[in-house]
């Protein structure tokens, strides 16, 4: 009991869980995967409207060429990640939304860039507006997982007073080490990228939030004389609202955004990508992905071109050890299980987990042990909401705050009856949205 209270004090937010970290790739340096033979680049890889295709079947494309234009403000551009020929623009398996319009590019023999990656630009002369445009033009989205277009987060409405920029380097998901490796190997780039965001937002405070299981990264960042908040390792420390609470003791109001409490949060990977874009003119065409699990021969961190099919990445990592049972894109707590390995890596893909076996557990009756209530970082009552959803009592589920659920999975993780609570909440949310539309 005292442990629980101390835990909440030290980690800065209530609830949460401590799943086994299993970050066995944290020493694996990022390896660059060569250009794959084919890529499937979805026009929708981000929150918001899909990009509008700019190429057609038969076009020749070069690396970095814009193939999809942001359609509206909350949207993002997409770029060719390899050079070659557009063989088709057609619906293809998508890791998040099942299936979506993709640009399929067949690689040419050589790697040709649309323009040579330019020498470092002098950023001092650029205005905030120009920097935001550069970020938007490069198709930068949040690389932590949600893939929210970054230029939107960098353009808060004038009436919101922002005083703090938090850079999220928690990587609280078990297994994943992509952000960790990026921080260790590219600390300077990440910090410079963060400074650009700071300049754009014109905020006095810049704080890096890093979990204390990444001591080397914390040390490196402290050497660079930036403010680092070493946070207690607890899942979901990297969830935006929990992170802000832990660092600033501010609570984002229900249904609100971080800007409502004067701060903006960006992921370390996003900082890195943004710097590459504004300084070197390199759009978002690749990202670091942690490949792990017993179903793949070599566990490693790989720099993968956006649109590379998962099976090509697996082949690069030595192939499957055996016929895998489960392939997850993302981490074990919030990642999405895939039915096929034909899905491409997209901007928000932080990990590829391959498991050779799954332990199916039957859902038991709720014994009201309240472990889910204690674990919920949002202060919800998961088991109550779950029974409302099961009974199709959507209004009550809404009244009990199902829309506040961040789907972190803590409740389902601790449930002794193996109830897939998050599954029911996702259903409940979609029912509420469906009802509000009609």
């Amino acid at each position: 009991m005292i442990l629980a209270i101390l835990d909440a004090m030290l980690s800065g937010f209530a609830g949460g869980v401590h799943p086994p970290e299993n970050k066995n790739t944290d020493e694996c340096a990022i390896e660059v995967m060569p250009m794959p033979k084919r890529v499937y680049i979805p026009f929708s890889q981000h929150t918001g409207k899909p990009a509008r295709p700019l190429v057609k079947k038969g076009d020749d494309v070069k690396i970095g060429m814009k193939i999809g234009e942001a359609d509206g403000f909350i949207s993002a551009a997409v770029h060719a990640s390899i050079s070659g020929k557009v063989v088709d623009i057609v619906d293809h398996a998508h890791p998040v939304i099942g299936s979506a319009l993709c640009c399929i590019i067949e690689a040419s023999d050589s790697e040709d860039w649309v323009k040579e990656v330019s020498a470092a630009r002098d950023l001092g002369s650029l205005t905030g507006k120009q920097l935001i445009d550069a970020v938007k033009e490069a198709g930068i989205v949040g690389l932590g997982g949600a893939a929210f277009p970054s230029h939107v987060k960098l353009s808060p409405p004038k009436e919101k007073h922002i005083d703090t920029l938090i850079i999220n380097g928690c990587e609280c998901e078990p297994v994943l080490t992509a952000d960790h490796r990026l921080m260790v190997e590219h600390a300077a780039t990440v910090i410079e990228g963060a400074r650009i965001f700071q300049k754009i937002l014109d905020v006095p405070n810049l704080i890096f939030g890093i979990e204390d299981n990444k001591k080397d990264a914390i040390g490196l960042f402290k050497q660079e004389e930036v403010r680092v908040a070493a946070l207690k390792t607890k899942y979901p420390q990297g969830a935006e609202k929990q992170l802000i609470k832990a660092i600033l003791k501010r609570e984002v109001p229900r249904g609100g955004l971080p800007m409502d409490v004067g701060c903006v949060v960006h992921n370390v990977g996003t900082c890195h990508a943004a710097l590459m874009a504004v300084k070197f003119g390199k759009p978002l065409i690749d990202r670091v992905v942690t490949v792990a699990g017993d179903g793949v021969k070599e566990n490693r961190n790989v720099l993968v071109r956006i649109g590379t099919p998962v099976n090509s990445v697996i082949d690069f990592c030595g192939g499957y050890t055996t016929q895998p049972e489960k392939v997850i894109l993302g981490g074990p707590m919030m990642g999405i299980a895939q039915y096929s390995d034909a899905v491409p890596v997209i901007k928000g893909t932080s990990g590829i987990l391959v498991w050779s076996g799954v332990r199916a557990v039957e859902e038991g009756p709720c014994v009201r042990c309240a472990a889910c209530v204690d674990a919920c970082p949002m202060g919800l009552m998961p088991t109550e909401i779950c029974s409302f959803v099961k009974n199709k009592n959507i209004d009550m589920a809404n009244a009990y705050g199902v829309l506040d659920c961040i789907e972190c999975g803590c409740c389902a993780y601790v449930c002794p009856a193996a109830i897939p609570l998050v599954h029911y909440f996702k259903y409940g949310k979609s029912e509420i949205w469906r009802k509000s539309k009609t």
Partner: protein
Amino acid sequence: MEKVEDLKRLFVVSASPHIRSKHKTSMAMRIVTIALLPVLAYSTYLYGLRVLFITLISIIAAVCAEALLQRMLGKKITVADGSAVLTGLLLAYNLPPGVPWWLPAVGSAFAIIFAKQLFGGLGYNFINPALAGRAFLMASWPSLMTKEWLSPIGGTLSGIDGISAATPLSLLKNPANYGDPQVIIRQLNDFETIRNLFSGNIGGCIGETSVFFLLLGGLVLVFLKIVDYRIVLGYLGSFALLAWLLPTQGSVLFHLFSGGLILGAFFMATDWVTSPITKKGRWIFGIGCGIITIIIRIWGGYPEGVSYSILLMNVFTPLIDRLTKERIFGEQKKKGVKK
């Protein structure tokens, strides 16, 4: 869509999260059962092998009742989850050691059939089945339930030398029936008596007398987070405070260590199914149990009030849960700011 052969490898899909902690309902039931076993061993030493016999009948009756009823109703038989074993064990712990062999069988069957399975089985019962069984037996065979005490080996029923006609709490209720009230009250609050109460060297129900072994098992469960500290602290804290404030002739320690309080506070009130799920609610639940217990002990007709206090609070549990919803992250205290 791509051609089918490109999608030939199909994997298992499920909603996140894809990992689960090792906690399992059946495991928790087993751990609670194990935590209660030292008490049984010591009780067997105190009152003889009869204790083991009664307890086994109670457990077997509970398990058989559950399996038979589920079979008759065409449901899946769930005795493997360990909850019926625990109900049988706890019911036995609430019986005097001298009861006839059929009494635990009847009590267990009632507990499982009427208090648990007819409400939908594990997770759906609204009152603690073991306590419901005990209440049923109390109402049906009051004399068997209040008179079949056995003296512990090398001790007396009351914990006081020379008085073997009543348990400590009955003695406190009606001291005049057994001798000079003032002397008896003084003796009850003696260090010697408190020590007997703590070690269990008195007469009482099978599983309630040995405070030492109950605390041992109970604290392990609190540490393992199977038992919620809020209920235990709320119960014992409010009870101790009121025992000190209200007019009673027993000392606070006497009240804490006598009767079924420790058994009830650690093992019965904390039953997952029948206690509130909100954090605030668990405090309220525990405090409510404490208040009702002391009221029954001081002003009620029974010398002891643990089981009725818990049963009463069980009934309030849904109401408590509804009135003490958790505060949602980011919820504004003032009205009308943002919803």
